[in-house]
């Protein structure tokens, strides 16, 4: 059965009329201790859920910042199995919804069925697999759903109406709209098109007056950008900028940055 952590969080946000702040960090960058510390810091700074990147040798959807973070994590010996064990360990201390972002081959190698069962048992709430489009992932998503693991598919600016509909239907937990035609950490361009796509996604995902939350991510850096994007969506995902900040800033400065992001997301 689903832990319901994500669902609970989204209904709370809706009730309070707030938008979700979902930061992304790389699991094990540069150590698991640092990741554990980052998770409590992010929670303290108002994260509604945390996306935990699983390092992979060939991250083809990622830009230079997350590629470098992934390399640091690989050097620390982290992989999908280690990431799941890590979640299991910190689950005793936190109830923040945790979403793994992993490429498909590690899941395939682990075994789709085994992963669908083991991940939620370890306390993972959802999974994002950037190189698994709806067509290839539908049966996995069905299986994962039965074990209470949300599978979040990505929709892109290039997806036409038919594909937006497909992605919206197949996604559970929330729908992830990729803000730009590009890789993680690329330059954001906020356009009317973005708002229109998000509205379309909201409309096509609505069923029985219930709509799946739509998160927007890729390229969001500043509190100003976070504010503008969140005004169009149900929340934002911020990855490269936070990964970069976490590796470069002193704790006080980092905290200030995270709080500014949180405050801007409304």
């Amino acid at each position, binding site marked *: 059965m689903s832990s319901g952590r994500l669902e609970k969080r989204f209904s709370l946000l809706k009730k309070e009329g707030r938008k979700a702040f979902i930061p992304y960090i790389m699991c094990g960058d540069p150590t698991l201790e640092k990741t554990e510390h980052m998770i409590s810091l992010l929670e303290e700074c108002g994260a509604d859920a945390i996306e935990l990147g699983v390092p*992979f*040798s*060939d*991250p*083809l*959807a990622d*830009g230079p910042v997350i*590629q470098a973070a992934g390399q640091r994590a*690989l050097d620390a010996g982290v*992989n*999908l*199995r280690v990431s799941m064990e890590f979640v299991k360990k910190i689950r005793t201390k936190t109830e923040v919804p945790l979403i793994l972002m992993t490429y*498909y*081959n*590690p*899941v*395939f*190698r*682990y075994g789709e069925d085994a992963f669908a069962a083991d991940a939620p048992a370890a306390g993972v709430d959802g999974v994002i697999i*950037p*190189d*698994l*489009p*709806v*067509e*290839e992932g539908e049966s996995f998503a069905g299986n994962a759903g039965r074990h209470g693991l949300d599978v979040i*598919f*990505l*929709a*892109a*600016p*290039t*997806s*036409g109406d038919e*594909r937006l509909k497909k*992605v919206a239907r197949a996604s559970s937990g929330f729908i992830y709209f*990729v803000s730009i*035609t*590009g*890789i993680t950490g*690329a330059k954001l361009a906020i356009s009317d098109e973005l708002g229109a796509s998000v509205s379309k996604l909201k409309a096509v995902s609505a069923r029985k007056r219930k709509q799946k939350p739509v998160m927007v991510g890729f390229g969001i850096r500043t509190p100003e950008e976070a504010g503008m994007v969140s005004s169009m969506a149900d929340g934002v995902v911020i990855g490269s900028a936070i990964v970069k900040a976490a590796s470069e800033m002193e704790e006080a400065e980092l905290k200030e940055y995270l709080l500014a992001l949180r405050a801007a997301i409304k």
Partner: protein
Amino acid sequence: MKKGYFGPYGGRFVPETLMPALMELEVAWAASTRDKAFRQEFNQLARDFIGRPTPLYFARRLSQEFGGAKIYLKREDLTHTGAHKINNALGQALLAKKMGKGRLIAETGAGQHGVATATGAALLGLDCVIYMGSEDARRQALNVFRMKLLGAEVREVSAGSRTLKDAINEALRDWTTNVRNTHYVLGTVFGPHPFPSMVRDFQSVIGKEARAQILKAEGRLPGHLVACVGGGSNAMGLFSAFLKDKDVLMTGVEAGGKGIESGEHAARFAGGQIGVFQGAKSYLLQDEVGNILGTHSVSAGLDYASVGPEHAFLKEEGRVRYTYATDDEALESFGLLSRLEGIIPALESSHAIAEARKIAPAMPKDSIMIVNLSGRGDKDVQEVARIMGPGFPGNEKEQTRKDRPL
């Protein structure tokens, strides 16, 4: 069979951003096969620009040396730009132009596909960016210069193993970013659907010609086909025309590098397991948690962690036998063909010659073998000289003198 699959292999494992482009490509490709004008233009360029048909050459001295089957070489090394890669690159460049894409990108290992794509771009007036691992750019420096000469921008990739797979990652990132105006000219029968089928079809001219040529020369089909397999496009090009001829045996030759036990190789069938990489499900060199392993081969064009999904299917069906040749075996065959036939083969193709050397002697003297000579070796001369040392040629043991009286 599920669309885009060969048995359980293949598929389309890419970010959503690219899915619409792959569908658009699939439609455009299907339309082009029905478009008489497109086919006419392509066939005319194949003849007048690429120089097709390429000869099927009876290698008399090589056959004598092996002492068994009659060896025929399909001379893809004689195509314009010097390798079979041009068949596919030009086809896709033409298709891209029809689709209104003004920019081509491509990955390259040995540099032959990069040169072919840069050539197609120059011919058709398209912008061109080629991604190449920095290790490959070093060992195939001549081809880097050729690409630049042809007007392409060469972007060296220094991530990961600095070879073909890293160049593909970077090309996919570029495509994800510029997909609206860019076509990705994938160079082999790999990646997401429709690339494996489309590239095979553009390369199928090799097998169609070879089949007609051998029937004309010998009045019968060959007993055995041999081709090297990196991604596997020259092999699919040759094999595809003979798949229904049950009596024609086929062997695909992977890069055995320094030997399977050494771990430094690119023999996916001998040393890999099924996995999903860069868009397709196939055999893959990976560790126990699904990270991709580094590969090694003396030949940049075979130095890749996975293999075309149709090859995985043909292996499973038992239709094609897959084996490997080591660096040393390939280097020996590189020298052998040069001395015996006056043909300097690409190091990639030298792997196929090395396998022919193993199996031809045991075949009857009236049997026929076709070896796909997928490319010429000019690009490799400098690297081979570096590896073999300053005394080469002339220092390769007793073999040299023994070969000469033939």
